[in-house]
């Protein structure tokens, strides 16, 4: 029964991995930006909640209402200025710029909030759980994160496939020049895509803040997990990202079941093994996103 519990926990943890990976996958798939500050932006989202919540409500669930919209605007602005500018300079510049931003964000958070851990309190939901079977524990929060990941990935997929904006985003991702000739305002559209990506980044950061404690340097680790979920799932495939997240989540909890300290190592080893035997991922996409 402990193994079934480990699998259930792993799948729910996979939801958190996938939620983190969604923004990374979207930003790369549509705009071609590899955001090395991805994890730090997510943690920044959690800190925005820490800073603003006291004047709004004690329950951190309220942060879900205002942090993602702030980040969407922020993402649109970032794309129209820094990211677009570095994309124009060269593909490697975005890497260097976002890596620089990552260090700047971490140290700014250290100066502003100290190195102490923070967490987002959501009242009784933090600990409440139900028991579908003997020995299997399903905390509401973790189940909620998994469902949120599925909902976010699903609605992004729907938006890209079924709406006019989504069609334009896909057109820009395929061939920005041709899309521009056909009348798409490419810069505005990539800005919107970045806004969506950043809103999901904020969601991931908030989910993580409710799930565990965070400190200014927590983001780096989660950039790695998000990236590995994307690679394991297959570049540019959103459902693949969910599958990749679940594989890594299972690796973590099953690894912990084998030896309590082996969880993180198991994740990395599964990733390297996947890279060696199946570098295109589980569900490789044929086209971008």
């Amino acid at each position, binding site marked *: 029964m402990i193994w079934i519990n480990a699998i259930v926990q792993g799948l729910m943890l996979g939801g958190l991995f996938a939620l983190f990976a969604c923004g990374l996958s979207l930003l*790369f798939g549509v705009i071609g930006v*590899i955001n*090395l500050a991805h994890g730090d932006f997510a943690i920044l989202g959690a800190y925005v909640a820490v800073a603003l919540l006291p004047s709004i409500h004690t329950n951190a669930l309220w942060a879900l209402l205002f942090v993602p919209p702030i980040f969407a605007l922020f993402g649109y602005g970032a794309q129209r200025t*820094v990211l677009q*500018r*570095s994309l124009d*300079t*060269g*593909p*490697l*510049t*975005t*890497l*260097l*710029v976002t*890596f*620089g*931003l990552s*260090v*700047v964000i971490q*140290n*700014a958070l*250290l*100066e502003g909030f100290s190195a102490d851990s923070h967490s987002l309190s959501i009242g009784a939901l933090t600990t409440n759980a139900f028991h579908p079977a003997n020995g299997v524990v399903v905390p509401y929060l973790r189940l909620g994160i998994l469902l949120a990941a599925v909902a976010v990935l699903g609605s992004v997929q729907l938006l890209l496939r079924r709406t006019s904006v989504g069609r334009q985003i896909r057109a820009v991702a395929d061939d920005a020049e041709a899309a521009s000739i056909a009348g798409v305002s490419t810069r505005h559209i990539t800005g919107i895509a970045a806004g969506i990506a950043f809103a999901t980044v904020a969601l991931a950061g908030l989910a993580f803040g409710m799930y565990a404690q965070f400190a200014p340097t927590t983001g*780096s680790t989660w*950039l*790695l997990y998000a*990236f*590995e979920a994307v*690679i394991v799932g297959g*570049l540019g495939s959103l459902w693949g990202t969910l599958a990749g997240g679940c594989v890594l989540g299972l690796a973590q909890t099953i690894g912990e079941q084998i030896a309590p*300290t082996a969880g*993180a*190592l198991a994740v*990395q*080893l599964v*990733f*390297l093994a996947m*890279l*060696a035997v199946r*570098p295109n991922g589980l569900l490789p996409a044929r086209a971008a996103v």
Partner: protein
Amino acid sequence: MSEALAAPAAALPKPTIRRSTRTSRLSLVGLAVVSVILAVLPFGAGQGTTNLLVDFFILMTLGVTWNMLAGYAGLVSVGQQAYIGLGAYGVLWLAQHGVEPFIALPIGAVFCAVASAPISWLVFRLRGGYFAIGTWAVADVLFLLTIRDSSLGGGTGTNVPGLNGFDPTVLGAYTYWAALVIAIIALLGGYLLLRSRVGLALTAVRDNEGAARAVGVRVDGAKRVVYFAAALGAGAAGGLIAISQLNVQAQNVYGVQWSAYMIFVVLIGGIGTLEGPIVGTIVFFVLQRTLADYGGWYLIIVGSLAVVMAMFMRQGLWGIAARFGIKLFPVGYNVMTTPDRATHGVDRALPPSGSVSGSQESGTAP
């Protein structure tokens, strides 16, 4: 140094190809003088100065090797701390087994270069940004594996044995010389590599990878050579860190902050030039020392500076000097149609008589 090229037409004066210019010859002499002064420094300067310079040389070595990776081979790695860690733990392990730490240092570095072969097989499957994060993941794996071994100090770190026998002054001087030698080897090695056939390929890759591939440059081989060399350099730097700090702590040596430092140094100094990382290291140290009382602020300032440089000033600070035709390391070719003037003037002062070397360095495939 120079070789004659058959004149294409009788009307043109016979051109010669030179690699060095007067400024570069002068600056090589200058570098030699600086090296000699630095070499005798421990006899005059205090331990505080030499200790600071050890950190300086470590960072310069890292900057020079990272610049070869990212600036020339287009391999933006944020995982060089994998080799810093391996180098440091290599020295620790060898010292624990009775090897003199200063002898363990080169062995550890070579071990890093050897270990980089199987790692390159794995990470070279990834391109661009995915390569960057992939190298980081490898460093994380090595960190997680290392802290599981309690004989290497686990997560808390342990002292390097074999260093207590030294007199502190002697140990400081030895460490300083080792750091100086490694920094000079990194610079000279980078210089000689760039002047070689591989260097020609690398310069072509730096300027336009697709075009280089199209004319038959062996791009992948050249990249792999640079990756091995950078692992060697980072390994040596890691060994030095272990010796200069007298202990090895996994969180420190495998820390991603090393990647941040080398990237900042290269971006500020000027990516894709040999001289850039030297300038960048000087600026980095000056900022770090001046802002020492303000905690993490120097990293915020240095990081922002690097971001601005990457976006608006790709040539970095060295680019300003290069605009005036100054170079320390002549790695290009200058075609001189009037040999007389070539011995006197700087190459860029020759447009009327037809110099084809206007840019930093221009290469022609043999």
